């Protein structure tokens, strides 16, 4: 029942001098009884129906949407595994291979060491070779070829050696 319907019921009760009304549907029960002074009291079992007046609550956070992801996404990376990631040290465009027709620097399963170049991030027309900075095996490629990345964006998931 919504507020309109409840008001309509209360009206009906008044007009017809009824003292009690009960309604149940799909687990929600509502009972309206006219109190000693004739005014209706509403009892609802599903708490969301008539919320109690709220004291100024301690806000938990601003309910604004996170920024839309074009062209660089802000959505924090959800770590599916507890494995570390190689993160972008700069802002720019991610490229997985040294040239458009060349094979990718690394793939899932590639074993790398600290000096292995894993990708290129282009910033201001400069192609920067990004090193793994740790030894291990690439388990996941998290960035998309040709797409912009921001500082801190996880590029690869790596299983440390």
């Amino acid at each position: 029942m919504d507020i309109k319907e409840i008001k309509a019921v209360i009206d009906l009760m008044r007009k017809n001098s009824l003292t009690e009304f009960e309604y149940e549907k799909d687990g929600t029960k509502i009972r309206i009884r006219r109190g000693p002074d004739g005014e209706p009291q509403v009892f609802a079992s599903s708490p969301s129906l008539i919320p109690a007046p709220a004291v100024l609550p301690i806000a938990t956070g601003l309910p604004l949407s996170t920024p839309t992801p074009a062209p660089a996404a802000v959505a924090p990376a959800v770590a599916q595994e507890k494995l570390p990631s190689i993160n972008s040290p700069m802002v720019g465009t991610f490229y997985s291979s040294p040239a458009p027709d060349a094979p990718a620097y690394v793939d899932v399963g590639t074993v790398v060491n600290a000096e292995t170049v894993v990708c290129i991030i282009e910033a201001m027309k400069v192609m920067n070779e990004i090193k793994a900075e740790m030894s291990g095996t690439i388990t996941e490629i998290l960035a998309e070829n040709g797409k912009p990345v921001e500082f801190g964006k996880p590029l690869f998931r790596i299983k440390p050696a």
Partner: protein
Amino acid sequence: MFDKILIANRGEIALRVIRACKDLGIRTLAVYSEPDHDSLHVQAADEAICIGPGPSPQSYLKIDRIISAAEVGDVDAIHPGYGFLSESAHFAEVCQSCNIRFIGPSPDSIRRMGDKSLARENARKAGVPIPPGSDGPVQTEQEAIKAAKKIGYPVMIKAVAGGGGKGMRPAHNDVSLVKGFLAARMEAEKAFGNPEVYLEKFIEDPHHIEFQILGDKRGKIVHLGERDCSIQRRHQKLLEEAPSPLIDNDLRKKMGRAAIKLAEAVHYENAGTMEFLVDGNGNYYFLEMNTRIQVEHPVTEEVYGIDLVKEQIKIAAGERIPSEFENLRPQRHAIEFRINAEDPAMDFRPCPGTISLYYPPGGIGIRMDSHMYGGYSIPPFYDSMIGKLIAVGPDRATAIARMQRALDETIIRGVKTTIPLGQRIVRDQDFRRGKYSTHFLERFFEKKVQNSS
């Protein structure tokens, strides 16, 4: 008009710029540091790019990352806000060479007026009064006496290698000058390793008065009146108001003309502020220029009904300054109080923390420029200002009454703020009478100590 602007800043000014962009239908790209991920300006922008970790030198001051973000985001212009890179001629130049419009003056203007001594030189050449001083250090007592005679007592003896208020002592006559000269040299040698001192006119009980100017690409410069920023603690402004209780229409005209003349001399473009010291006799002296939008710009906006940030964007996009902006007279009175997350009881120590409850003031004549919200965690890496409370009224008394009401209404829980100090300042009799100088706060604190003992 621009299609998209990158805001190279954070906090309340980033939000301010984003609001002006929204009003103009311009899309916004925010850059932010990792701890600022949940900041309001990031949420309010259309797009956002992370540019580094907390410390500013690794994020908000990283020109390469900001420019990268500008390219990745395909923006037309960058607004630098205040602080950070807003007065970096180098940054303005990099923007230029990357074909991105810098919303501010030219790199040349920033250099010519950003350098304090160059600025004074430009002022002198433009016929704008500067604090009289000895031309360079004085080596002997005789030189000192001669210089003091030329300048006129009282004078301030300043260490050449000093700064930040250190190594200065006043002298009111020849006798105290000689004594002070010798003592100052000894002190300077000990403190700075350089005994050299020079003389400057000692301006007693000055007001810090600054003039807002705007210049467009066609070379038209206008001034939008003054702001009185005398209420400072350790050279940090706490409260500003427009118009100044000290300035009458004649002095406003004179100083306004001087500000415009100086801006014209350096072909200044976009928003800027000329700072002056004014004594009780209507004598004014040029101090320095800020080649950017200022923190306290809202008081000018409220008094003249002009959106200064919007004007900055329009000027940068090539629009003319409207002729209606010339020779405006202040129609209203506005006061701004800076709310800092600081503990006044602990010598204003910064209090980063989480705001558990925030209820902003409202009602007629109240404006709050802030990035605060309930649940927001103030990061420890940046300055402690969390909001600016502005009260406007048809006259000064109404503005003060509204400021008092608004400060009393505001609830910020979870961090200590300077609001209690603001509540005491607006109730102070000297402040209410408009009788104050840059020494107001020190005397105010002394009064408090006396009263409590």
